[in-house]
């Protein structure tokens, strides 16, 4: 099937800036577009919005806690409510529990994200520098890897790649730890090129010999695990291959001179300088950003008029990430109508976005055991939909971002679509419960109250659609929702006031139990219906 093209160049968008544009930008750069955020940014300019999304300084979040002591198990070292990242030891029991704690912690950060692109970028880099907690089998290390992604998420990409090379999580995951001069392990040397930098696009021609040569350069980087809490990557000169490394014509037949002793560590800079001198690195990353944030398919027009200028910016700015994002999200192309609503939400966007857009209430942070438990539930629901944060399927990340020709359609199949529907049904109907009557659930009435005119059934439906979808629905469908759901089958404009009366009674007669139940049920049906339509899958 031919895919419709989108117009608009990389030039600055100077068209209307309103809620519609703000919603598009927020749905892509954050998890869901909350009404208050859309209203906030729509009242500013595109420039200020992008400035806020990309350039807001954020501190590192508080680390994850021991939420996992229970009647069957107590961490002997870390008290409940204290962070376990300082722990000096770990057994299988602790690793499993801390891993869950880590995932809950991360999911909570997404739900409570600031009005910035940070969390989306962390997920982007997680997909890019894919590692699996189940393989790494060290919660501390997985946590530190996540912190690394946060620190570099909007920084310098080249520095990020260097830091990743020292990252104990990656050293474990891609066997850099085992890469010694006697028997080089090529795993990281290969993925560094194939998946992390030059990629496998049409402009990438590195060879098997280049993989071997890179692996030799990378010999000696290993994990220093003397202290669990201070686990780190170091250069071990004794393991390093000190011979010269010859690269192919793709890299201009570069020879990286073997360096002796401690100086061997500097060969990493030689290697990265060589790799980053290839224009393909900038194009590869810009294509990946495009697929994640704009649309899955890159046609000739997008390659020439969007990717190439973005890549040029990337190189010109020495691989700083912010200028590229700024240029992309300020572009006419990004705001082209055809680029709106055309991404199938990834599962994290689906579940976290739901909680955020409906402002689902969680227990207070001091009730961290409940908060962590709810976040783990959400994380597991998301995993059922085939996106298990912390554990992507393999080093290539999720297929939705590379598997031609389906790309993001891969998220939706006969197993996952029903699971998405089960999830939204559950969130609107019963929610997820914990002991002591704690639950997370969509409060349909509270959500409707945030709308401008919920007492008018047509405004209620239009505003709800406008908040939850990127596109409108046919009038027939909206009329059906009004009459079939809100008006119990009553028809015609003349009947609208019955809804208005019932809605207003919530305030004027709050003790009218039957009315409250009726209005609540109608709103639940309405939002359940809206979330079951396929439009809700798009952002």
């Amino acid at each position, binding site marked *: 099937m031919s895919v419709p093209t989108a117009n608009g160049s990389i030039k600055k968008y100077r068209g209307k800036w309103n809620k519609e544009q703000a919603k598009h930008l927020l749905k892509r750069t954050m998890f869901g577009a909350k009404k208050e955020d859309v209203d906030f940014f729509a009242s500013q300019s595109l420039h200020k919005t992008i400035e806020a999304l990309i350039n807001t300084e954020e501190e590192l979040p508080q680390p994850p806690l021991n939420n996992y002591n229970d009647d069957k198990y107590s961490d002997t070292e870390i008290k409940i409510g204290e962070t376990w990242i300082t722990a000096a030891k770990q057994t299988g029991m602790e690793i499993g529990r801390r891993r869950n704690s880590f995932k809950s912690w991360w999911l909570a950060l997404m739900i409570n994200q600031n009005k910035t692109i940070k969390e989306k970028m962390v997920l982007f880099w997680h997909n890019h520098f894919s590692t699996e907690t189940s393989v790494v089998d060290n919660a501390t290390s997985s946590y530190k890897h996540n912190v690394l992604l946060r620190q570099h998420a909007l920084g310098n990409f080249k520095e990020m790649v260097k830091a990743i090379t020292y990252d104990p999580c990656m050293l474990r995951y891609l066997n850099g730890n085992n890469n010694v001069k006697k028997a080089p392990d090529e795993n990281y040397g290969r993925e560094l090129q194939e998946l992390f930098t030059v990629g496998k696009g049409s402009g990438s021609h590195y060879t098997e010999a280049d993989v071997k040569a890179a692996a030799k350069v990378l010999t000696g980087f290993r994990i220093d695990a003397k202290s669990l809490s201070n686990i780190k990557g170091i250069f071990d000169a004794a393991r390093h291959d000190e011979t010269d490394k010859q690269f192919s014509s793709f890299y201009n037949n570069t020879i990286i001179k073997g360096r002796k002793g401690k100086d061997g560590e500097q060969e990493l800079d030689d290697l990265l300088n060589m790799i980053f001198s290839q224009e393909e690195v900038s194009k590869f990353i810009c294509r990946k950003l495009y697929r994640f944030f704009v649309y899955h398919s890159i046609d000739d027009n997008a390659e020439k008029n969007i990717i190439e200028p973005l890549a040029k910016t990337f190189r010109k700015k020495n691989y700083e990430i912010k200028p590229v994002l700024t240029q992309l999200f300020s572009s006419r192309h990004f705001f082209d109508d055809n680029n709106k609503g055309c991404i*199938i939400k990834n599962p994290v966007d689906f579940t976290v976005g739901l909680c955020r857009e409906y402002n689902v209430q969680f227990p207070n942070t001091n009730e961290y055991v409940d908060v962590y438990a709810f976040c783990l539930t959400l994380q597991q629901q998301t995993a059922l939909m085939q996106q298990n944060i912390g554990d992507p399927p393999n080093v290539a990340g999720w297929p939705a971002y590379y598997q031609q020709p389906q790309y993001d359609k891969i998220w939706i199949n006969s197993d996952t679509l029903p699971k998405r529907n*089960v999830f939204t049904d559950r969130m609107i109907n019963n929610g997820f419960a914990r002991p002591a009557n704690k639950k997370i659930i969509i409060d349909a009435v509270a959500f409707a109250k945030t709308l401008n005119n919920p007492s008018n059934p047509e405004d209620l439906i239009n505003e709800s659609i406008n908040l939850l979808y990127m596109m409108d629905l046919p009038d027939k*469908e909206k009329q059906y929702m009004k009459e*079939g759901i809100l008006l*119990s*089958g009553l*028809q015609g404009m003349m009947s609208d006031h019955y809804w208005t009366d*019932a809605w207003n009674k919530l305030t004027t007669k709050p003790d009218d139990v039957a*009315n409250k139940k009726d209005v609540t049920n109608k709103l639940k*049906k309405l939002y359940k219906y809206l979330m079951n339509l396929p439009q809700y899958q798009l952002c």
Partner: protein
Amino acid sequence: MKRRDFLKNTAIGVALPTFLNGISLKALAGTPLMHALSNYMHDDKVLVLIQLAGGNDGLNTVIPFDQYSLYNAARTNIALPEDKVLKLNGYDATVLHPALADMQKLFNDGKLGIVQAVSYPKPNFSHFRATDIWMTASDSDKVVNTGWAGRFLNQQFPNFPNNYPNPQMPDPLAIQVGSVISSTFQGPAFTMGLAISNPSNFYNLIEGKVNVDSNTRWGEQLDYLEEMSLKTDQYADVIKKAALKITKQSDKYPAQGKNPLADQLKIVARLIAGGLKTKVYMVNTGSFDTHAKQTDDADKTIGTHANLLKRVSEAVNVFMEDLNYLQVGDRVMGMTFSEFGRRIKSNASGGTDHGAAAPVFYFGNKVKSGVIGKNPTMPTNATVNDNVAMQHDFRSLYATVLQNWFNLQPTDVQNVLNGTYPILNMV
């Protein structure tokens, strides 16, 4: 698995609504078939509920002919002319609105009956609340969370939706055409019904049409999502198969779109004849909320209310004819209901305001025809406060259908309705 466990565990099957092109089909997550169920229903009887949304003016539907002058005095501006109303064989005191010619014929053929003055103690005059009372079969002052048909189906098909569909019950338990699932079908934990939101979507489904909008990027994505919705919808397939078994229906149906109720019932007839084991169908038409100008000024036999009634009468008649043409007429019983009747005295706008009791029509080859109950008593000098007094609790009608049509044991009927109600001579 206990229902409670089932609720706790979201990984497994729950009633899932998925949508194709706006068609909402409640599907069920695939769970492996286990045991045959013990007390599912062995007969093939079907109930069709026709909701007259808005509160039908019963007094201008079934007219107390024996009190014509009081009737005429109470609502002079809308009263039907004495010489235009339709007679019922064997019931001289009661006549029908002139728009109900088809129903008159059905009555006189012994295939349609009327229950007079149906309501409940302390009637409620709010559309929403009164509708809820009819659907949940609750007392006026009690809020109940389950629907009466939902409780009935839950009793007959325990553990639904766990292990459904299965060979014994491969089909939806209940189907609602033309609306979302009403509370009528709400079971203790899950809705027992599925909805076919509108007739044209139904035909798109059986013809395999997808709303192709590939000119936009989101439209192309939406096409894919809609296709996938259809594939994952276990009931979409059985509905499609049942519908495709029927290649010809009665040619008496009005053209599509002319009579929305007939459009809905045409689908119901097709699904019944196509072999669905679905027990209860619900359709709806409206809006009977005739506060103003319910008749033509000059000719009281035409106008808004007449059009609404004609639609019902015509639709029921062609539905019956089609059922018999498709040779399933003996299996089907139908019943109308409306959340309330309207006031005895008309208002100055040529309409009627929310009232209390109203008549119910029931129909089918196997029903006992006749008028059950007597005409409502027309007061002299009717005031705005005068209402038609209840003669039959609406739950008596439900009890009769459950016991005499679906052959439930009286104790089961009591359980479904949370009480004992007199059985009427309907079927």
